[in-house]
């Protein structure tokens, strides 16, 4: 039986997605990558992941909409970490209102992300 925890990562910077995939898979997690919010929603519906990592600004569907969909429509309790850029403080507050559990401001350290993921999953 596969006990590996699944994480969905919604991020439009492909290099960053790949880097986080390498880093988190090294820690024993299964990472599913979505390059935009629409794809992220599909993956979340399909896989019901243990944790969701999402950028706020993404094409088609924003990170806020992803959080809203997960909490409002899917009623999924998986922890959500939101990535934000400088100057998006208001968006971060909105994402907390919608049900996000944590946030990281870009640029962030991948090692710090791993610590936060572990804290939320164990």
């Amino acid at each position, binding site marked *: 039986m596969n006990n590996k925890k699944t994480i969905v990562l919604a991020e439009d*910077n*492909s*290099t*960053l997605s*790949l*880097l986080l995939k*390498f*880093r988190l898979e*090294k820690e024993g997690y299964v990472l599913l990558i979505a390059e935009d919010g629409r794809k992220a929603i599909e993956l979340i519906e399909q896989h019901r992941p243990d944790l969701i990592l999402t950028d706020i600004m993404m094409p088609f569907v924003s990170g806020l909409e992803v959080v809203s969909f997960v909490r409002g429509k899917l009623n999924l309790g998986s922890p959500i970490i939101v990535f934000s850029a400088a100057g998006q403080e208001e968006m971060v507050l909105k994402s907390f209102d919608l049900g996000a559990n944590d946030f990281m401001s*870009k*640029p*962030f*350290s*991948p*090692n*710090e992300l791993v610590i936060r993921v572990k804290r939320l999953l164990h």
Partner: protein
Amino acid sequence: MSKYQYFIEYFEQFPLVIQLLWIISGFFMIAVLVLISYLKMLRSYLRKKEKNTTKYEKEYELSLLTYLFSGNEVDEVNPEQQLIIDQLKTCSIDKLKRKILVSLLVKLKKDISGEMSESINKLYSQTGLIGYGIAQLKSNQWHVVVKGVRELAQFHSTEVYNEIFNIRNHSNREIRKEVQLYLVSLFNFKGLAFLDDLKTSLSEWDQIQLLEELHRGETQEIPDITPWLRSENESVVFFTLKLAKTYNQFEVKNTLIDLLLHKNKEVRIQVILTLGHLNVVESKEILKRNFNQSSQEEQVVFFKIFESLYDNNDESFLLEHIRHKNFDIKLKALSMLKKFSIDTFKNIEVLPTDIAYAKIFKFVENN
């Protein structure tokens, strides 16, 4: 040949207008055909370029991540990393490949910090991309130089300090701005050395950006700012006054007092505000002494800071100005008198005929 002859003769039988229309139509048909073929070629070229870009992006993305994850703490550069460095070094000779590689590094640097970000800086240097960045500094096109300086700043290339410092007084404003940001973002307060001989003016926006960069920096070790306060360049003086205020440079109070005699009124106003912010009590008596010779703007500004420097000996000075011709000064003097010496305030005689003054007095009394 006879067939063509027939067409020519047939064409010549047409009236001149028809002939002209045929010629124009023919010209446009040829032009459309040429344009269609050109667009087709351009489209296939762009598609090929895009395909290549995606291909190289994927390739370099993988190399970059392998480089970042194969590092260990024992060796500075392990054989696997060295192999990637050599490959990327070869690739960076080609302009397009170099552009893709640099944009990939920039894109990742924008989103990550910590050890990996430092590794990317190292890779930029190891792959020789730094050399291309330096070469951009010698370009005749200003935007290329700006791009070069920005790139070198993004990858924290401190080793090119001299090359960049040498262009600090470049004739192009954008280049100067980028150079200043490079110096301050990488060397913090030490980077402000360009102020020593800055020939041009620092705009308000430039000053805000520099303060923002200084704020982001880790070092708070502030050098002696006195020479900049004495600069011939007034924008440097304004900027240094902002520094003195932001970083509470009480040590420069004597230089600030000297600047009360500066030839520029705007400088003197900012100096008064800075002295007030730093609570330099010694400046109060000088400002009081010079009050009547000062401009009205300076007098208003002095009354703004007067409250924080006030002591009981200043009561007579206040009383002298409760009927000042300037509304702001009059109002402030009355408010301060009410705050610090209520008995004296109550004894002020207000003539009922002086309606305007009575209104101000009533306002201060009730607030």
